[in-house]
């Protein structure tokens, strides 16, 4: 096939893709004027594509190679080729698959309780894995990070920083202690905690504004550079 034809075909495909993306971008932004059918079409398209993509990728990368292929292979070895020594391996891959399928029992009237077996195992795994990890990450390491700077003080700025963090930790904990009325010295400490919380919320909101503007920058860059060619 003529190389020039292929090149022109690829360029045309890319241009078509850019045009589709640009029109869909404008369709989504049309919501800023007011809700309309074009916006709803683009939104539905996005949701449908995302879910379809997730299903295909999950099937191809997980369900097929991690469940169906191993079960089919071991089934063939044991029951077709008669390699009964492989029965252990077959059971090893079959049990998780059966447990996974049991999750769908909740769709069967009267048999929903069967799914609890799989769910109980899943919750047990989740709790067993996450409790010690969270204890280490969120409590032990955080206490270490708060206290350690006082043990290795080498300059005034680091000391002030460590004191600010410690005061924030203690006062915020006071704020979330509800078994005692927030009055007197306790109330003052809790009030200090609210200031720390407000600073946190303000910083988070500021970062959120920055993130949303970044998304607008990304779309405008696409429209101005890739679609209209206004910027290089």
């Amino acid at each position, binding site marked *: 096939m003529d190389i020039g034809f292929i090149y022109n075909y690829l360029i045309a495909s890319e241009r078509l893709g850019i045009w589709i993306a640009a029109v869909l971008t404008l369709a989504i932004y049309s919501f800023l004027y007011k809700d309309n059918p074009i916006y709803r079409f683009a939104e539905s398209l996005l949701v449908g594509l995302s879910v379809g993509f997730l299903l295909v*990728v999950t099937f191809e990368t997980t369900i097929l190679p991690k469940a169906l292929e191993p079960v089919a292979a071991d089934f063939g070895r044991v029951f077709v080729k008669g390699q009964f020594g492989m029965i252990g391996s077959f059971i090893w891959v079959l049990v998780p698959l059966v447990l996974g399928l049991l999750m769908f029992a909740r769709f069967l009237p009267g048999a929903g309780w069967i799914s609890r077996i799989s769910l109980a195992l899943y919750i047990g795994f989740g709790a067993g894995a996450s409790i010690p990890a969270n204890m*280490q990450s969120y409590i032990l390491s955080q206490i270490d990070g708060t206290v350690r700077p006082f043990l290795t003080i080498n300059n005034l700025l680091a000391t002030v920083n460590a004191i600010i963090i410690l005061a924030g930790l203690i006062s915020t904990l006071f704020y979330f202690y509800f078994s005692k009325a927030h009055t007197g010295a306790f109330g003052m400490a809790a009030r200090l905690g609210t200031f720390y919380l407000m600073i946190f919320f303000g910083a988070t909101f500021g970062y959120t504004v920055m993130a949303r503007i970044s*998304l*607008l*920058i990304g779309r*405008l860059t696409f429209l101005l550079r890739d679609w209209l060619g206004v910027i290089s």
Partner: protein
Amino acid sequence: MDFWDKIRHLDRRVIFILMVLGVGIPLVTRIGLPIRITPDVRRVYDFIEGLNPGEIILVSYDHDTGTLPEMIPMSDAILRHAFSKDLKIVGMALRAEGSGIGRQNIRRIAGEFGKEEGIDFVFLGYRPELTATILGLGSSIGRVFPKDDRGFLIEKLPLMQKVLNYGDIDLVISISDDDTPVYWINYANARFQAKIVPAVTAVMATTFFPFLNSHQAIGMVAGLKGAAEYEKLIGISGSAGRGMDAQSIAHLVVIGFIAVGNLAYFLGRKK
């Protein structure tokens, strides 16, 4: 209706138009405002700069397509830095959409440096279930990802023959638009002592500050600003740097709206 009444009842679409102009004009004119390097980004740069050629970075694309404008510039900058130092890249994804993005991104940047798939970099693909996947990588990467995303057995890939688990990986970077790096910290760092860098959207930045203070994360690259800082550190002029001009002007527009809105509110209350 006086001026302040009109301001108080301003059509929100006027605000949208001013915001689009505030972002669009700097993109076209390119102002070149200065970018200050923060310690969190510098620590990431310094760590990668300190690695020796051949050492390995695991880059996990833990995000969807909705946040590409923030994620791609930081991914590009980090990958360019890594490939320029002849570091090896193992890519993977904990989000389905991230698998397509990561695959394209790593191959594109690797192509700029003439790197070869299987020898200088691999892309392992996507796995669901964060906890099981991250814990599984600690014992054997080959059991979690028996094949790369092209379908090649990973034991046949020259790069993966020397990468068994976190013990062979010098740095894990989670490029994420949610709290997935917390899982990396909880399981890969707390249990296997893997070194973690969250490269996250600006929205998620405050979630990770406590982990920086406790040194559970090496550093952090947050949002377009973090990407622009990284571009500056590696000496390139990329899309993040250009975007920061627009970002700064857009922030001024927002501050202006807040000031004018409050003024209109308080002057209206006096009447």
